[in-house]
């Protein structure tokens, strides 16, 4: 995926300015930055939901994992998956995916009958099941407790190991970025201030501090 001469302005203020950014296919790229750094704007531009100057190549079809699960309350877990899938999609595959994320037997439950973690698992299943070339994740672990974060990070890594998707992952948490990415891009004031590989194979140990974390903290502060 290649972004060239990207510029997004809101009035006179530059929200994002990226002369060139190339992301490797089949890798997870973490985009870090403080609030207002332009992280979500970058995801919006990649997905095509936010119009901007410049060009994006090789993005293909995009799937999304949001900060909140965003499940439709009137549809059960299985129907929430089928809702976004193209017409005539295999229902069995959706059931298998729900079983894969640990929700076997809970396909018929409505969101209000699921726990917060289970809702986010349905959202993960939906994001990986939706036919895509690129998966965009917008701070999906930021509003959850630590033990849930651990299980969801492990789930996302294990699903990625099966698909080897190109993933762009926005976060403000250096630990998450170090755990889950092959590469980290740090944004500050809408510009890329650091861009470096994160060493080590996935999955990584949740309890160990990773060497990339200190480098990320330095770039952020």
């Amino acid at each position: 995926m290649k972004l060239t001469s990207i510029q997004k302005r809101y009035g006179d203020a530059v929200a994002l300015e990226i002369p060139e950014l190339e992301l490797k296919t089949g890798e997870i790229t973490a985009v870090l930055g403080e609030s207002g750094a332009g992280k979500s704007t970058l995801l919006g531009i990649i997905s095509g939901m936010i119009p901007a100057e410049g060009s994006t190549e090789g993005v293909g079809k995009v799937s999304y994992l949001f900060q909140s699960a965003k499940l439709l309350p009137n549809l059960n877990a299985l129907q929430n998956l089928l809702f976004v899938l193209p017409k005539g999609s295999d229902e069995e595959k959706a059931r298998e995916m729900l079983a894969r994320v640990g929700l076997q037997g809970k396909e018929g439950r409505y969101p209000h009958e699921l726990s917060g973690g289970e809702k986010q698992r349905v959202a993960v299943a939906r994001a990986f099941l939706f036919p895509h070339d690129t998966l965009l994740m917008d701070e999906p672990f930021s509003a959850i407790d630590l033990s849930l974060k651990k299980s969801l990070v492990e789930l996302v890594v294990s699903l990625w190991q099966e698909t080897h998707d190109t993933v762009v992952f926005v976060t403000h948490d250096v630990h998450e970025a170090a755990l889950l990415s092959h590469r980290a891009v740090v944004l500050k004031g809408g510009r890329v201030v650091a861009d470096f590989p994160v060493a080590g194979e996935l999955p990584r140990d949740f309890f160990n501090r990773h060497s990339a974390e200190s480098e990320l903290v330095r770039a952020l502060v």
Partner: protein
Amino acid sequence: MKRFKIQKNFIFSLFSVVFLWLFWLIAYFIVRNDYLLPSVWDTLRETGRLMGTGEFWRAFGGTLLRTLVAFVLSLVSGTGLAVTARLFTGVRAFFAPIVSVLRSLPTVAVILVILLWTSPAVAPVIVSMLVLLPAVYSAALSAFDEVQEEYGELIRAFRVGKARSAVKFYLPLAAPPVLGQAGGIFSLGLKITVSGEVLASTYRSLGGMMQEAKMYVQMPALLALTLVTVLTGFLLEGLCRLACRLLVRWRR
């Protein structure tokens, strides 16, 4: 806690009924003229007598049917127009002045005009529909806007088609707030239908019976019919609330 709240609300509602009854009683003793304001007792006795006649039930059925037809037609067309306005750019702006005109139409003038074009049985339905349509449209559109605000990002991100969005997203998610207001809209429909029937002297209608009672200065009958209309309005609101509870099984 919830039960206590329901009990408390019931007691306050009961106070309100007692207040209205006292108001009527005081007004009766001030006016002291049965031709102008009959007593509560006389009115209730007349209500009972009317309910024992076939003529009343035929009139009641006719009015209820007209109200129901107007309500269903405005619910279907108002919701349909609101879906179209939500899904297609420009349609909302196109509808805005039309809805404003419909909202500010003087009901009595419209009844008189429509009476010239149609029959006394049909005119109340059309007028009621013209009054209800903007109410349903606005309720549905604001419910759709709320739904869009909360879940619109999901629809855009996964590029869900318009037909699927309408059927599985907008309509079901907007149903609870729209059905929540439907009771009030239905009740308003009854009021407008009866007004139309009074002006049109519609055969076999509560409004027609009211007009007849007024002509022969039968005040207890007039108030009894008014009381029936008010109570039917309450009943329709309650039925809509019940339908909402039965139809919507999910929670946000």
